[in-house]
Each structure stands twice: as C-alpha cells, then as structure tokens.
C-alpha cells in the first residue's frame, strides 16, 4: 500500500510538470511549411507513391528505415534470449499447470486451452486478419499502410492461430524454424536490395533497375513486402516463443 501511494504521488507530480510545460508553448509561431509544400507538390512525381508516408520512409528517408529494422531485430534477439532463460526455470514438470481458458467439463487434454469462443474466433477471423495484413503490406504505396503496419497485422493473425491451438501444436510450430528462416532471409534480402543500387547508380537506397525502365513504385512495393515479412515473422516468432513450452 505504501508503494501504491508513493506511485500515485509520483504520477501526480509528473502530470503537474507536464501541465506546467503546456503553459510555456509559444502559440504565435507559424508552423514550418517548406517541407510540407515540397512533399505535396513533388512527392508523387519523385517516387510514384500516392501515400506520402510511404514516399517519405522508403524513398527520402529509406536509410532511417534500415535503422528501424535493425532496432527491431535487436529487440527480438534480446526478447528471445530473455524468454529462453525464463523457460529454463519455469518449465519444471513438477509444478502444476492451470489452464484458465478451458471449459468446465472439458476432459480432453488437447483441448485444455480451447473454448468454443476461441475456436470460433481463431478459425473464422484468423485467415481474414492474415489476408488483410498482406493487403495492407502490398498496397502500402497507394493506400494507408506499408511494411511495418502490414507486418504487425500479420503477426496478430498468426497470434490468433496460436491462441486457438494447444501447446503441443505451438511448440511444433516453433520447432520447424520456418518463421526464423523467413525473418533472416527477408532481412538479408533487404540489405542486399539496398546495397544493389550502389553498383548500378552509386547511390545508396535508390532504384537499382531504373535503367531497365522499372518504376520507383515497384521498388517501394518490394521494400514494403520485405519489411512486412520481416516484421510479421519476427513478432510472431517472439510470441510463439513465449507461448510454447520447450520439448523435454
């Protein structure tokens, strides 16, 4: 209880500091509009992407995107190592496992994690969510979305499948290493594609097939697909590692 009141005090002080900061925001400075005007007028012509967010993060600022994917892969590596070390302690077979999701009269051991609600949700909504994820990933250049968004939606779809399946199936999914292969190869391909343009045009992250008449739009689609596969497989790999148990 003492910890709780201390925490509440800290929160109240923090909120007051933030509110006091609002008083010092100058409100008569005009917003800078140079970059915005330039992007609105030239963005679609330069990159062929109707979605200006995609135009920025895969054309003008593609190098930052490379950094972002590296940050994500480092985060996944860290999480995986932490989860693995936790597993070693908590996978003691003597401790009883309680299944919170099971129905009252469910006797089958393979159905302990499954209720009718979960089965219906994962069976019907999971494929739709996966399809929507691939749509968001592939249409990132003309509609809101892109690699990161599509990847997280794909991961949510895979997680719906994980939730409806028993532990043994999830563990099996983890054993055959498809997801980690997809993630690693997508990341390597992403770096290769970004390096390829140095050989052709000498500029990092530009369209390597420009001389052959391929539009920049298709380069953005390819980068979006690679990022989406990498993010989706990485996040779902993390969640599979959390929810499966190690085979003893």
């Amino acid at each position, binding site marked *: 209880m003492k910890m709780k009141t201390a925490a509440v005090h800290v929160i109240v002080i923090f909120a007051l500091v933030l509110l006091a900061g609002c008083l010092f925001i100058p409100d008569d400075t005009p917003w800078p509009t140079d970059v915005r005007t330039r992007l609105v007028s030239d963005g679609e012509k330069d990159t062929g992407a109707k979605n200006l967010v995609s135009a920025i993060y895969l054309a003008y600022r593609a190098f930052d995107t490379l950094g972002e994917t590296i940050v994500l892969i480092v985060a996944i590596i860290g999480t995986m190592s932490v989860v693995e070390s936790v597993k070693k302690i*908590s996978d003691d077979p003597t401790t009883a496992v309680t299944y919170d999701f099971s129905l009252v009269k469910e006797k089958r051991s393979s159905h302990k994690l499954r209720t009718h609600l979960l089965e219906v949700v994962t069976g019907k909504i999971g494929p739709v969510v996966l399809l929507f994820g691939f749509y968001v990933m592939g249409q990132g250049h003309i509609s*809101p979305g892109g690699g990161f968004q599509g990847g997280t939606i794909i991961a949510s779809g895979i997680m719906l499948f994980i939730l409806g399946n028993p532990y043994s199936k999830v563990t099996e999914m983890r054993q055959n290493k498809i997801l980690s292969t997809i993630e690693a190869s997508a990341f390597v391909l992403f770096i290769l594609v970004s390096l390829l343009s140095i050989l052709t045009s000498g500029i990092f992250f530009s369209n390597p097939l420009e001389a052959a008449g391929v539009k920049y739009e298709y380069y953005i689609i390819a980068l979006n697909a690679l990022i989406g596969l990498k993010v989706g497989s990485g996040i779902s790999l993390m*969640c599979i590692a959390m929810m499966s148990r190690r085979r003893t």
Partner: protein
Amino acid sequence: MTEMLLVLIIVLAVFSLISRDLIHSVIALSAISLLSALIFTLHWAFDVAITEAAVGAGVTTIIFVWALKHTSRKDI
C-alpha cells in the same frame, strides 16, 4: 470529440493504475490503444492508426497477459 476521447483516455489510464486486478488494467490499456487509434483516424493519420491498433490492442495485450500468467494476477 478529440477532447472527449482524451479525457476518456486519462480516465482509463488512472483506472489501469489503481485497479487491483491486473487483467482489468491490461484491458483498460488495450482500450486506450483503441481510443488513440480513433483519435489518429479523426486526424487523418491512418498509417499511425493501423499501427496503434495492431500493436497496442493486439500484440502488447497478448504479451501482458502472458506475463500475468507467469506472475501474479493480483496487484499488491
């Protein structure tokens, strides 16, 4: 509209802090993510809204629930 949603977010955040049952806190956090996705949509930032909905309401909720399953559900 935006102010209303922001006030609702603050209420939910305070609830998630003081709630005794941590599952309720997790659900409140997930609702916060959905409301912020709504705010982003109202301000025409659809890309951010998609990310917020997928990450905030989907992935982090599942990770929180997993963490709760391995620790204690009650707040001490």
